[in-house]
């Protein structure tokens, strides 16, 4: 538990991805089985333990501590598990391994749980107490995705991330066979039916780069603004995976029910609406849910638009060229009106395709995909066979409101920015961004922030509303969680407008108007270069 507690503490305070990876990798290399496997599962949320409730923790505290002293402490610390870990009067006695802790939580009945937890707390030091309580409450909160954790595994040995992901499903904590494999042992057998296969990803391209390629070697299709998924059905087991291999079947029982074939298909998850496809905003209503209400299943039915076949009726099609796979796809019968095929676009020159891209038939299209006819299906992001040519980002001119100091390579620089738009005479924050600057711009922005600070809160400074920044983004959704009522997708600062007075920045209603605007990348507008909150002019 000592090493696990140290790991949690380091991960919790380390902001940079690479540093996180390194810390995790070192832990996994130094920790024996099965401890490291349980730690790994705890980090990725794959450890299904009986969860200890806040009520139970409060009960423990009341039994041991003066009510007033505990209340004052909790008030100061702000986190229940942390308060208990800190206030508890235990003496470290020997070592309790994470494996023992997991077994204890797995085997103790509900009635015996409070006493068992108190017993463990009595024999741990403070940081181990916190780690144990976080484990028990199932709330690690360290910002580490399952994919990032598996990346650390891939760094430990020969197997690549894709190979690891391919065998992962069906494996259970503490994953001894995976650790043996990355340390030179045999590749584990795929344990489960309907596993995830690494998906093929595309790289961005623009018209200039396309001109170097022969249109005749390529096919094109719409790029749908949904969720990339892999639907797999093998031997009666049916699953839906996100493109990173997370099993999202639970959120889409309606789509799972429509799968009556055998195979593994690659496609876009979309929400259907009358006669077409609903917006990404509608799709979001269905995401991140463990269970879905019947009403939501009715109002927001899920559908699948298939663009590739990996496995079909037991045959692995991945080594075969795209056009062979496409022939099988077009001949396939999915036996469902919720599942259809993404059509190919007809074009003979890149300019033809540019015209199609500028005037798509559906607002849920965010550009075009360009794929080599003879390419096999290769997991990962090979440069070349698949390209995405996204529509131009939308932009608004916003005013810089808050700045926060960055970490790692940006240490000491104010490099994370919150920006806002006008609503009446006040600025309403609409988003946060930290990328998209050169070193020189970073220095200039840092100087601006230091010279224009109006207030400080810890590492954050409020700045005088003077500087306009052009913010590019991929879309706007309604959001109840944001004060502005809107949330930007993938915002980044594309230009600093030293020249523009803050009063001339855009208004919040400009952004609101873009939420459901069906033809925001209307061909006319694009050609005219209308930029006021619409489409960014190509320069």
């Amino acid at each position, binding site marked *: 538990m000592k090493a696990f507690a140290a790991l949690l503490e380091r991960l919790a305070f380390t902001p940079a991805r690479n540093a996180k990876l*390194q810390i995790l990798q070192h832990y996994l290399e130094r920790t024996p089985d099965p401890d490291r496997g349980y730690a790994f599962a705890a980090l990725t949320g794959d450890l299904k333990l009986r969860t200890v409730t806040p009520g139970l923790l409060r009960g423990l505290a009341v039994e041991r501590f003066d009510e007033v002293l505990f209340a004052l402490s909790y008030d100061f610390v702000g986190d229940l598990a942390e308060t208990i870990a800190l206030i508890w009067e235990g003496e470290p006695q020997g070592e309790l391994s994470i494996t023992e802790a997991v077994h204890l939580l797995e085997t103790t009945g509900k009635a015996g749980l409070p006493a068992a937890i108190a017993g463990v707390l009595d024999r741990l030091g403070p940081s181990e107490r916190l780690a144990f309580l976080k484990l028990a409450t199932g709330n690690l909160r360290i910002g580490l995705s399952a994919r990032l954790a598996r990346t650390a595994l891939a760094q430990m040995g020969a197997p690549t991330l894709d190979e690891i992901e391919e065998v992962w499903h069906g494996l259970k904590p503490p994953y001894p066979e995976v650790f043996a494999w990355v340390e030179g042992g045999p590749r584990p057998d795929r344990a489960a039916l309907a596993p995830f296969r690494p998906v093929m990803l595309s790289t961005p391209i623009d018209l200039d780069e396309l001109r170097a390629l022969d249109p005749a070697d390529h096919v094109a299709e719409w790029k749908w603004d949904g969720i990339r998924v892999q639907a797999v059905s093998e031997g009666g087991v049916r699953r839906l995976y996100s493109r990173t291999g997370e099993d999202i079947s639970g959120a889409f029982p309606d789509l799972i029910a429509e799968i009556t074939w055998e195979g593994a298909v690659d496609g876009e998850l979309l929400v259907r609406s009358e006669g077409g496809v609903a917006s990404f905003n509608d799709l979001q209503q269905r995401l991140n849910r463990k269970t879905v209400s019947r009403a939501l299943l009715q109002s927001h039915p899920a559908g699948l638009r298939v663009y590739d076949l990996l496995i079909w009726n037991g045959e692995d099609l991945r080594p075969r060229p795209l056009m062979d796979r496409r022939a099988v796809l077009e001949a396939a019968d999915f036996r469902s009106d919720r599942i259809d095929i993404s059509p190919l676009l007809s074009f003979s020159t890149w300019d033809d395709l540019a015209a199609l891209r500028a005037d798509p038939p559906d607002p849920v299209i965010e550009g075009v995909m360009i794929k080599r006819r003879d390419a096999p299906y290769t997991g990962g992001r090979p440069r070349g066979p698949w390209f995405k040519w996204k529509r131009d980002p939308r932009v608004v001119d916003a005013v810089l409101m808050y700045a926060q100091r960055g970490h790692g390579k940006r240490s000491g620089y104010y490099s994370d920015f919150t920006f806002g738009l006008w609503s009446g005479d006040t600025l309403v924050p609409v988003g946060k961004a930290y990328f998209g600057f050169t070193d020189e711009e970073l220095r200039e922005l840092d100087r601006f922030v230091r010279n224009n600070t109006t207030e400080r809160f810890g590492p954050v400074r409020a700045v005088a509303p003077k500087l306009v920044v052009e913010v590019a983004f991929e879309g706007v959704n309604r959001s109840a969680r944001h004060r502005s009522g809107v949330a930007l997708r993938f915002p980044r600062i594309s230009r600093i407008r030293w020249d523009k007075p803050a009063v001339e920045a855009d208004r919040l209603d400009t952004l609101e108007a873009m939420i459901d605007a069906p033809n925001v990348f209307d061909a006319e507008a694009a050609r005219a270069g209308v930029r006021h909150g619409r489409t960014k002019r190509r320069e």
Partner: protein
Amino acid sequence: MRADDFLYPTDAGLYCPPGDFFIDPVRPVPRALITHGHGDHARAGHGAVMATRETLDIMAIRYGEDFTAARQVADGPVRVGGVAVSFHPAGHILGSAQIRLACQGGPVITVSGDYCRTPNPVCAPWEPVPCDIFVTEATFGLPVFKHPDPAAETRKLLASMAEFPGRPHLVGAYALGKAQRVIALLRQAGYDAPIHLHGSAQRLSDYHLAEGIPLGDLRPATTPKQIEGQVVIAPPSAFASPWVQRFRDPVISFASGWMAVRARARQRGVELPLIISDHVDWPQLTQTLSELRPQEVWVTHGAEEALVRWCELNQLRARPLRLVGYEDEEE
């Protein structure tokens, strides 16, 4: 003499009428007794100052030789007016002292100033000073504060340096006391490479060296080219200034008792929190009160509510003085 006539709080600080002096006054007064050199306790501009030799030296370094009109080294028991005064080690920083006051027919009062009972390589250890009234701080006066072994915290720093050998580790530490303690802890842990200092900690560290405290090879952290070592000690305020920009991909660390609480560490943007404090934690505070068992406890500053509650539960008379003007150098 009643205790309340012997020593009481005023706007300028604690005042002792029979001796006609203030203790750690926060504004200029004719006569001041000063517990230790931290800026909020030791201010310039008094008529006369009595303090330990080290505290007087530190004040002269910080404020210049003319920081007071007259000074007197506290050395053994002395009489000030009608009061018997003596200074006793407080274990907080170099030169820090508790001040014992006694007068005919009155109670014995110990004003502990800031104090700490964890062994500290840069100063003499705290000593119990039996008394009727114990005047205590309560900076970490909540039962959640149980400072861990500073050697273990130092090992965390060394482990991070081994994990990220290419990254400089900037350790935030108050320029007087904490900076030197962190250096001494690193030396005790066997780290003997040069340690770089932000300019504000330089002269005070030199003074520690001159006092025979082995801090090893200390160098300025001026230009990046000159920095060979992996550890740089700086006051936490430096992290908000462009000074940090000279370091490539640094690990920002901070040595303070507040680092025990995650939200506090996060709020400061710290990547490597080190729980190292120069103040008593809750167990030390309550242990001290239990051992001294004074008739009354006066709480100067900090989380007095919880400490007064604890005294209530333990049948000790306690009252908060709510002195203002004392900041907390671990912030």
